[in-house]
């Protein structure tokens, strides 16, 4: 027994309010500092996010999983490409290099075109981005759902052979789109990992892609992961946006996702402090 004057760890009775927010509230304190368990929980979350940034894609595994999707293998074997960023350290400091294909990848893409008579309606690019884990974990499920819905909704669309890009940024889709002369491009990419969401996949779409387009010309469906937006809902949104972009002849800020507006209905009476 010690006769301490102060409790070592003070717990916060409002911790139960966590049911209303994913924020790290009510952590308690040792003195005024984080208790050990809460400190280590944070460190683990950060370690996972760091690993998500730095672990490379397991390309072979990913290709195997893509091949198991009938609608995907029907489009031909996935083409593997690299950006001009040779490694992660360079990729992180030179986003400009992540937006352009390496020379050898450029010529591989060029040669993949020969034989096809007309340019495609849609090209699909899968890039590691800032979280290979997000791509590894969510891209196959998304592709399965997306291609099934696409085959059902838009059977007449010519879809190019899917492309897998290492060390790629979102705008690499613009470069690829230009080479393929595709009407639209969607880029599946690992999003910047959050502390509590290291595995979010983003899908960006651009109508009439060409290098140098501002981000304002893109639409995005983000946070696709098991604990976030499900793949079924996400692929529905993407197809909706693709169709709308074709109708309007453009993408980006001019194209609003009306299905988003439902989320505006926040609980107005939730402010329990007053």
């Amino acid at each position, binding site marked *: 027994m010690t006769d301490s004057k102060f409790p070592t760890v003070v717990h916060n009775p409002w911790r139960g309010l966590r049911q209303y927010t994913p924020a790290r509230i009510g952590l308690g304190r040792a003195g*005024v*500092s984080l208790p050990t368990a809460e400190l280590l929980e944070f460190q683990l979350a950060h370690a996972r996010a760091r690993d998500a940034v730095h672990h490379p894609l397991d390309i072979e595994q990913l290709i195997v999983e893509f091949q198991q999707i009938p609608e995907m293998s029907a489009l031909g074997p996935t083409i593997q490409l690299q950006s001009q960023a040779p490694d992660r350290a360079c990729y992180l400091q030179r986003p400009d290099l992540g937006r352009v294909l390496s020379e050898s990848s450029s010529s591989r893409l060029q040669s993949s075109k020969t034989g096809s008579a007309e340019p495609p309606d849609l090209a699909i690019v899968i890039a590691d981005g800032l979280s290979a884990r997000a791509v590894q974990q969510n891209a196959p499920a998304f592709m399965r759902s997306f291609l099934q819905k696409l085959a059902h909704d838009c059977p007449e669309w010519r879809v190019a052979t899917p492309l897998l890009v290492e060390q790629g940024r979102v705008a690499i889709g613009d470069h690829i789109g230009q080479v393929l002369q595709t009407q639209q491009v969607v880029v599946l990419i690992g999003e910047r*990992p959050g502390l509590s969401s290291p595995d979010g996949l983003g899908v960006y779409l651009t109508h009439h892609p060409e290098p140098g387009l501002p981000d304002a010309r893109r639409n995005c469906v983000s946070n696709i992961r098991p604990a976030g937006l499900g793949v079924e809902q996400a692929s529905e949104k993407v197809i909706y946006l693709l169709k709308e972009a074709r109708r309007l002849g453009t993408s980006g800020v001019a194209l609003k996702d009306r299905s988003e507006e439902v989320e505006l209905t926040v609980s107005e009476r939730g402010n329990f402090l007053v």
Partner: protein
Amino acid sequence: MSGQYTYRMGFQTMDFRDLGTLMAKATPERSGDHLAGVGAASAEERVLAQMCLADLPLKTFLTDALIPYETDEVTRLIMDSHDAAAFAPVSHLTVGDFRNWLLSDNASPEMLARLRPGLTPEMVAAVSKLMRNQDLILVAQKCQITTAFRNTVGLPGRLSTRLQPNHPTDDMAGIAASILDGLLYGNGDAVIGINPATDNVAQTKRLLTMVDEVIQRYDIPTQSCVLTHVTNTLEAIEQGAPVDLVFQSIGGTEATNQSFGFSLATLKEAQEAALSLKRGSVGQNVMYFETGQGSALSANAHHGLDQQTCEARAYAVARHFDPLLVNTVVGFIGPEYLYDGKQITRAGLEDHFCGKLLGLPMGCDICYTNHAEADQNDMDILLTLLGVAGCTFIMGIPGSDDIMLNYQTTSFHDALYARRVLNLKPAPEFEQWLRAMQIFEDSDRVALNNDIPAAFRHSLSGPRRRA
């Protein structure tokens, strides 16, 4: 031809094309300047540029505009508002001499305050490039800037915090839970400021009303802010929303601000609208600005300048509107601008120094993203250094984790750590409130009450109890 910006050492001659090039080459290393292609190519070139810069007369910056006067309204603001009389005490100095002067005992807090209108951002940026981290801390500590709205921010021996109760869907119960957490950890005297997930006028009004009700219900001597675009806030004011502070992210070039969708005239209009509401009780500083190195390059609006010089120019914009708060969001932008903890630390100290020397109530969002080479230990270092430097305010967020913006900043606990080890207190009006509400048991020791204060007991069960 050897120009004005040539440096000779022995047989070596370094020729810098223009003042902007010299400034960029003299900047301590950071990834953003390499991304822009303006940084020094070698460590030696950097120091030679610093030597050249040290010999440059300070007044050069009054005649050689880094961005032409004719094409940039920030340059015009800087030049037109320069006070030659205030500049007189240092007008004969070189940049290198100016560093010595700032460190000397001639540069008293009173002297530095009188000098402010005579300094341009470029002079301040230039001298910072010659200074070590400890110089940046020492001089910043001598600069005292006090502002006020419902409390007084920036007094010596005080460290304020912005309570940042963000929620990924702006859920009211979620935001309320984070506000409660922050208040019970003694945070929120700089502002209770929400980054809205849904960024439009209707949502801004809803959130403003929500925080205003909390401030009124508990009579908290603090102010609220929804960090939305200045034009949204203007519209909210017109529609009768309870706006305390007008927020805007600002940059150091006209083109950057254009990419953010505003001009100096927009800010003026918003400031006047907020002033007309007369909601401040102890002061009328109604503006809140955020800045950050790299924003100009990111908007492709940097005019070939280095990111730290662009950042300092943003402070000219800020000081024109007498803000209550300015903070540099130092590590948010990512490793392509500030690669690691070392670069983030340096940038945080530079920004705080430059802002303070120009007369701003400078705070810092001490932060990093998960793709930067940085972690909590780096933030602990910068927090401690900025606490010593007299930083006006920092962010406070539950457990360092911003679940809406996906980055890590300082936590409620971090603020208490800094207050405890450096003997810093919240703003005096807020400190008194914390005692009265029995949140602080002993504010001299920075000791929290172990029991939940009576006024907040009803909140423990959240919205269900009241439904």
